[in-house]
């Protein structure tokens, strides 16, 4: 059992997350289930008894296959979802880089969406004003900032989303596989920015089903399989066992 120390920014203590699959969503399904007096549906465990901690300024990678529980961990850290059992402690402002530009409204201009998205991420009006120019500069959208974002290409959309997230002065940055998309020069720029945040002491959690990003970027890695934390350690070791599990012998031969 881990205890929370001053230096740990994210602590999971025996966390389980249970979902009801195929749950009754209308009264027509719910009321009969109530009379039958049994659970609506079989529970499904997205996470089972997971414990770990991430220290301040650390960069940790979580790898595993899709549906293994990685996204659930990010949702628990982001404070979007609550654990079914166990405790989650998060100290610090979280900026999720999950699905960039999720909060964009297509009819609003880039500028208006920056205001909206930045305030969703917890920035005050003054912080937004200060960061506005850096956000636009980083996204390289000088000529399009007053255009409704529905006219943006998907690349422009993501650039703006990424730029807002990294400029929201996060203390904890959550990175999903979003970096796999976008053109190569911008990807490099994103990586450079993440290195910059890393050296500035931002805690970063990277989630991926490919080892590459985790290997070149993280100090520590965790392998999540079927909702359980299987191995934790140096990225090379963890990625090795991940590949042993999912890409057995024939790749080696």
């Amino acid at each position, binding site marked *: 059992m881990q205890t929370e120390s001053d230096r740990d920014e994210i602590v999971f203590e025996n966390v389980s997350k249970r979902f009801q699959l195929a749950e009754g969503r209308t009264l027509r399904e719910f009321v009969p289930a109530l009379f039958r007096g049994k659970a609506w549906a079989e529970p499904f465990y997205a996470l089972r008894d997971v414990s770990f901690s991430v220290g301040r300024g650390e960069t940790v990678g979580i790898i595993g296959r899709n549906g293994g529980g990685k996204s659930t961990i990010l949702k628990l850290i982001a*404070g*979007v*979802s609550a654990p079914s059992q166990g405790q989650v402690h998060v100290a610090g402002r979280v900026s999720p880089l999950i699905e960039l530009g999720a909060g964009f409204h297509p009819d609003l201009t880039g500028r208006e969406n920056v205001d909206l998205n930045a305030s*969703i991420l917890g920035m*005050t009006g003054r912080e937004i004003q200060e960061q506005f120019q850096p956000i636009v500069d980083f996204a390289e959208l000088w000529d399009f900032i007053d255009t409704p974002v529905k006219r943006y290409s998907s690349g422009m959309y993501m650039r703006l989303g990424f730029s807002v997230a990294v400029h929201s002065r996060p203390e904890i940055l959550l990175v999903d596989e979003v970096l796999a998309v976008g053109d190569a020069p911008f990807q490099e720029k994103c990586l450079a920015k993440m290195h910059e945040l890393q050296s500035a002491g931002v805690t970063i959690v990277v989630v991926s089903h490919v080892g590459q990003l985790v290997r070149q970027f993280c100090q520590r890695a965790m392998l999540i399989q079927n909702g359980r934390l299987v191995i934790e350690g140096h990225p090379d070791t963890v990625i090795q066992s991940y590949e042993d599990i999912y890409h057995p012998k024939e790749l080696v031969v």
Partner: protein
Amino acid sequence: MSQAQLTSKHPLRRTWGVIDLAGYLITFWGRRDLLWHMTVRHMRGQYKQSVLGYAWAFVNPLSQMIILSFVFSTILRVPTDDIPFPLFLFVGLVPWFFFSNALTAATDSVTGAASLVTKVYFPREVLPTAAVITKLIDLAIGLVILAGLMAYYGDAPDATSWWFPILFAIHLLFVLGLSYPLAALNLYFHDVRFLVGVALTLWFYLTPIIYPIDIVPQKYLWVFDLNPNSLFINAYRRVILYNEAPGWDKVIAGLIIAVVTFLVGYYLFKKMEPGFADRI
């Protein structure tokens, strides 16, 4: 965000006491920038894709007023003493439209923001609150039409009209209090939005909007005493059309109903909030 707001607690791990509830309300107030941006987003989105744009906000109340006036004063001849029926009707209809539109929009507000709710944490009550505030535009437009109507009938605003904003503020608190649990329940049961539609239709006829409360038979008056909207709409008429103060008993009753509804509704919302992302 200030250091004090950084907590080692998961935002969805809650304790429940009077002080905690106050804390959630303070956090909510701290995010008023977000509330503003979210409201602007709703306002922009509302009539954006339509040819007439904001003109639609005029068309709906005007057409309703004309048809209801025709049916209930020309055909059915509802007695409204010396007040012209369209004026009588509209003083009740404008706040009712606000009530009805706000509740409908708020019910869908959290379900409609699925992509945000599953990605980022922010106090979720921002969503229904922004939906309700957005409808203040419709209210303002309704009041403009009402002013035009009063000018047309040569009815100068009464001295007691200053009560209107006070009464409306209380009414607004009541609307918010109903919005929160409805928005939350709509995630659990998608039936809720349909139930709200049915309930609003029934509620419209059980509120003295198209008829004066005076013609309600004595033995049914208790229904109207239990209906907060009846209280508010009668009070609006008194202060705008009859030059009478609403009466302190009514104001205090309205205030108690509104505050209790708000607190209970807000409590229920926060209680259900941890499950939101899992339910969308």
